[in-house]
C-alpha cells in the first residue's frame, strides 16, 4: 500500500485525466489492482470507487487478482491464429493447468490472452514477463515452461 501512496504523489488530484495512468502505474508495480489500492485512488482523485471500477473493468489491461511470478501472454491475433495459436493456447492450458486470466496455485504462472504483440512476422508468439518467444510449437512450449520452472528451483 505504501507503493500506492508513493505513486499517487506523482499525480495531481485535479481532473480525471490522470486516472488511467495512475491505475497503469499501480498495475505495473503490483501486478494487479487490489480493492485497497482502488479505494486509495478514489480518495486521491475524489472519485467514487464504483466509477473507478467502471473504468478499470472496461480495459483488458487491468487485472483484479495477483499475477503469477511468470506471466504468460499468448497472442491470439490474426497472424498467430492462422499459424496455430489456438493449439498453442490449449497446450499451455494443459501444461500449466490453468485457464486464461487464472493464476496457478503455487503462484508461479498466470495466463493471459492478448490481441497482438506486434511480432506477427514470427507467429505464433508468446511473451513471458515481457520476453518474446517466437515460432512456438507444442513441443517448444513444454521446454520453455520447464526452463522457467528450473530457473525457479535454482
Amino acid at each position: 500500500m505504501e507503493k500506492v501512496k508513493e505513486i499517487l504523489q506523482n499525480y495531481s488530484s485535479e481532473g480525471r485525466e490522470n486516472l488511467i495512468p495512475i491505475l497503469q502505474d499501480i498495475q505495473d508495480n503490483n501486478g494487479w489492482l487490489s480493492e485497497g489500492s482502488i479505494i486509495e485512488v478514489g480518495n486521491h482523485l475524489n472519485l467514487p470507487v464504483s466509477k473507478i471500477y467502471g473504468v478499470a473493468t472496461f480495459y483488458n489491461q487491468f487485472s483484479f487478482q495477483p499475477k503469477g511470478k511468470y506471466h504468460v501472454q499468448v497472442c491470439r491475433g490474426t497472424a498467430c491464429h492462422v499459424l496455430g495459436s489456438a493449439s498453442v493456447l490449449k497446450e499451455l492450458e494443459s501444461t500449466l493447468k490453468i485457464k486464461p486470466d487464472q493464476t496457478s496455485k503455487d503462484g508461479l504462472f498466470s495466463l493471459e490472452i492478448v490481441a497482438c504483440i506486434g511480432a506477427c512476422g514470427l507467429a505464433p508468439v508468446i511473451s513471458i514477463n515481457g520476453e518474446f518467444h517466437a515460432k512456438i510449437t507444442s513441443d517448444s512450449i513444454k521446454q520453455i515452461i520447464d526452463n522457467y520452472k528450473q530457473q525457479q528451483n535454482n
Partner: protein
Amino acid sequence: MSEFIKYKEFIIDNVLINSKNNNEEYKHKINILKREIVYKPIIFIGTGTCGLGAGAGKTLNVVKQYIEENKIDAQIIETGCIGLCSAEPLMDIQLPNKNRISFDNVTQDKVVDILNNIFKYNNKQEALCQFPSENNESWEDVIPINEIPFFKPQKRIVLKNCGIINPISIEEYIANGGYKNYIKVINNDKPLEICDIIEKSGLRGRGGGGFSTGKKWKFALNTPSNQRYLICNADEGDPGAFMDRAVIEGDPHKLIEGMAISAFAIGATKSYVYIRAEYPLAIERLKIAMQQAKDYGLVGENIFGSGINFEIKIKKGAGAFVCGEETALIHSIEGKRGMPRPRPPFPATSGLFGKPTIINNVESLSNIAAIIENGKDWFASIGTENSKGTKVFALSGKISLTGLVEIPMGTTVREVLFDIAGGIPNNKKFKSVQIGGPSGGCITEENLDIPIDYDSLLEVGAMMGSGGLVVMDEDTCMVDVAKFFMDFIQRESCGKCIPCREGTRRMLEILEDITKKPANGDSHDALKRFKGITQLEKLGKVIGETSLCGLGQTAPNPVLSTLKWFRNEYEEHIFERKCSAGVCTDLRVFTIDVDKCTGCTICARKCPTDAIIGAKKTPHFIVDDKCISCGTCDEVCKFDAILIN
C-alpha cells in the same frame, strides 16, 4: 549518451539554422554523422520487437563478449527493424572504408564464426547484402540491398531510416535531413499554406478511413478556439498489423517531426501520442527521442526563436480495440471508459476536452516531413489517381518472407505476395489474403492482379485498413477465419449500441453452429444451419447500417467477404459436415478399429455423451448421432484403436 553529442553546436548552427553551408568541412562532418565515413568498426544489431523475438538479445550479448575478449575496438549500435522479420536476427558490420554489410539469421551460435571471418581471417563468407556508398569500397560478390527482390520494388519514404540509423540518435536523424524542414516551416510559412500543401499532395489517412489529411486539418484550423490538440493514433489495434510499432521503434524522430509540423499547421501547441501498452519498446524509444528533441530546443517553448510552442505527451492505451476509434480514444485520454459517441460533432471541431482535435495515424504523420521536403507534386506523382504516395504493409501468415514492405500505391497484390515476399512456402496453394483486419475482407486468386489502392480494394469487398496482410493457404479454413474475427469483434465490442453488442454475438453463434457437429441427429439440422447463412447476410447488413461507430459498421465485413468468395466452404461445413482444411476439429468423424479394440471399456466410461457402447472384452463402437467429436476417446485409448477422418 550518444557519441555525437559533441556535434550539437554544429548541428544547431550549421545544419538546422543555416543549412546552405556546403563547404568541405561541413560535408565531412555530415558524412561522419551519417556514418558514411567511420574510423572504427561498427556492428549494428536489429533489436526491434521482431529482432528480439528471434533472439537478437542473445546475439547482442555474444557480440559484446566477443569484442571484449578479443580486444577489438568496435562500436555496437542497436537499430530498429529493416522489415525482413523472417531473416531476423540481422547483424550488419561496417569496417572503415568498406561498405556496410548485412548478415541474416544471425542467432547466437553464428556470431563467432562471422566475426572471426571478418576480424581475424579475412575470409569470404555469405552475406545477405551490402549497402552501396560512394565513399567506400564494396565487398566482392555481395549483392547490393536495392537489388534484392524483397527490397527492389519498394519505395521507402516512411521506412527510409528504419533499421539503418540509430533510432535514438537525433544527430543521425538530422544529418539524414531531419528537422530542417520543420525549422523552415515555422519560420517562413503560414499554417494554411501547410494545410494546402498536404491537401494538394493527395495524402489520405493511413489509419483506415482514408480521409484527405489536408482537408481534415483545415476543419480544425478554421474552428476558432484558444486551444487545439493533435493526437497521434498509435493504438494499432488490428491484430496482424505492426507497421506503426516498427516505425516508432526504428525512427521515432520522423514521427515527432511529422507531429510538430502537423501541430503547427492546425494551430495546436499540445499533442498526445496514444500508444498501445503492448509496445513497451516503442514507448521507451519514443520517450528517449522526445527528450532529445527537447534538449535540442525542437520541442518546447519558442522553438528556435519562432514564437511557436509545441509539447508532446505519451498516453498509454489499456488494451481495448475500440479505443482506436477517434471518439473512444478521446474518452480514454480523458480518463473515461473508451466508448465512442455519435458524430457529428467531429473531433476536428469538438474533440479532446471539447476543443478542436485532429487525430492522425502514425504512418500518415510520418509522411509529412518528406512531403514538405520534396513538395506536393513529388508526392502526388507517386501512386494512382486517387491514392497517392506509398503504403506500408505488414506481411504475415503463410508466406515465405514475413515483414514490412513499403510500396507505391497501385502495386498489385500479386507483386507484393509473389515477387516481393516469395510466395507461399512448403509448396502449398495460395488461398486468400486478408487485408484490413477485423474491418476488412479477403482477396482471392482471381483478384490478385488488382492494384492496391483505396478504391480498387473497396470494389472487391475488402479495404485498405491499416495495412495488415495475413496470407492464408489451402490449410486455412475460411469459415474458421470468419469465426475468429467475429469472436474478436464480439469480445471487443464496447457494448454501447445494440446492433454491435447483440448482433455480433448472434453472428458468432451461427458460425459456431456451422463449425460444430450437432449433438442430436435432427434431420432438419442441415437446413436450419443453411438458414443460418442467410441470417448471417441479413444480420451483417443490419449491423453495418445501424451501428454507432466504425467498429460495428465494419464488423460484418470479414464474414460477408468470406461468404462471397468461399461460399462452397460454408456449404461443405453445413451439408457434408466436413472441413477440408482440417481446422474445424469438431466436425471430425470418429470410428473404432475393431481389430485393435480390446474392449477395455475406458473410452465408453470417459465419453461425455455416452456415445460409445459395447460389451467388456469385445470391440466397441461409436453411435454417430451421439458423438460430439470431442476426441476424448482418442486421448484415452491405449491401443490406437480410434480412427479419425
